[in-house]
């Protein structure tokens, strides 16, 4: 199997793939990026918190016009994760037609290969797919 790395460092591939966030120890605010401090309370102490792999679609747009190299149409969404945290990602494995989406629909995390470098290392990205109800 090819070597794999996450395309962003807040995606954890060990075991069951999931997202992880920097959590402010003062106020509990969650961040995906490297932090200098907390934008909510100004605190500077952070821990790691693993986030749920299920959630609901908070908003979406079906993108038909994109930057070069991006396949269209695709569905950009904001997903509110169960138990806290929101994340931006595409909704996958469903035809990109308005009728196939509803706000509040239940989704779960899935991963896919987004690219391969010259050493054969695969960059693994994440998206969300509908949960069969």
């Amino acid at each position, binding site marked *: 199997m090819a070597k794999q*790395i*996450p*395309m*962003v*460092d*807040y995606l954890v591939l060990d075991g069951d793939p999931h997202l992880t966030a920097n959590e402010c120890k003062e106020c509990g*605010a969650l*961040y*995906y*990026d*490297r932090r200098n401090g907390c*934008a*909510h309370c100004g605190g500077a102490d952070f821990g790691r918190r693993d986030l749920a792999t299920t959630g609901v679609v*908070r*908003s*979406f*747009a*079906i*993108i*038909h*016009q*994109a*930057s070069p*190299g*991006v*396949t269209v*149409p*695709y569905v*950009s*969404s*904001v997903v509110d994760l169960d138990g806290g945290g*929101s*994340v*931006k*990602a*595409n909704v996958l494995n469903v035809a990109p037609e*308005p009728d196939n989406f509803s*706000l*509040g629909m239940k989704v779960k995390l899935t991963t896919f290969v*987004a*690219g391969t*470098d*010259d*050493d054969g*290392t695969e*960059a693994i*990205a*994440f*998206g969300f797919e509908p949960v069969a109800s």
Partner: protein
Amino acid sequence: MAESVWVLGASMTKIQRYPDKDLVDLGAEAARAALVDGGVTIQDMGVLGCGNMFQGMAGIGQQIQQQIGQTGIPVYNVINACATGATAVRTVYLTIMAGEADMGLAIGLEQMGKMGLLGVGGGGKSDKNVYEPSGRYGSVIPVEGILGTTLMPGVFGQAGQEYAYEHDGVGFEQFAKVAEKNHAHSSLNPLAQYQKKFSLEEVMNARMIAYPNTLPMCCPTGDGAAAVVLVSDTKLKTLSIEQQQRAVKIGASVLTSDPWAERGQIQPDINTLTRNAAKQAYEKAGIGPSDLDLVELHDCFATAELVHYDNLGLCEPGGAGAFIDSGAPWRDGSTPVNVSGGLLSKGHPIGMTGVAGVFEITTQLRGEAGDRQIEGAKVGMTHVIGLGSSCGIHILEKAAA
């Protein structure tokens, strides 16, 4: 210290593409016209505020001075996303309020040509042969399109969808009606980039850019400049009766940025900073939304205009869908919105837009708006918001006399 600040002169170029002019040509044209409109000269100006986004490093304000008069006054070149022009106006406003000048010139200008999609995000790295995490998210390849979109049509599309999620009676058709209205309004504005009406069906059936925004529901790129001359109340009293009668009072000038919000780091929140700015503006002007005779708000996308009806308090809370369905924001409705054609059809040269909004309201309150005049308009609001983030609101009031 000034008690109040007034708009004495105002001007804007038609918005279009100007391949044969440069940014300084456009800025100088608008500035000179605003000075003439105010009955003053560059020698009367005590401060210059100049808003421009894409050539912001070039000292555009000083370059314009070199064409219209170098008098040694302080120049502030400002850049503040889509609120860049409003920030230029506010810089001059603050200088006059502080008593450092009794008159000043604010210019907003942009030359975008055919820039295409703005705000390309993602990692922004060149292609690498070997993946190596870098940047604040430890990304190995650009994320745009793979982990959602940060481009404007999608971001503002989602902002509208989020409102639709939370409120009844809002969907694709309501968003499309906004574009139908603004394109119709622009047919009366000779300064608009486009002056073509579209039926609701044409809007809804047009090429999809980012559902729910079709092509005529997205603002174009374009070139243009606008300028205003501001004056203190004390200085205004020394000017001619005609100048005093045409002057328009700035009842409120407000600028806000994003407060922390839970989803703010992953998706821009265009609502909270607008609501905060509106609250401050109404308090400062001592009026409420029902006192507004017209509003120029930031309709960069049709979805954005709809949510701002609610953010600015123009409709009942949660009632933006019913508001557009009722026809209230049409020019013959109860609260005319974007009678200039708005960003959707008048155009949106980024740095120009905030000043162009002040021009439009000023022209309307003076009763000089020609075919698009809202009869008897006495109070108007202009609103802009840029991602990243900055929101500017100005409330203007017709002279009492």
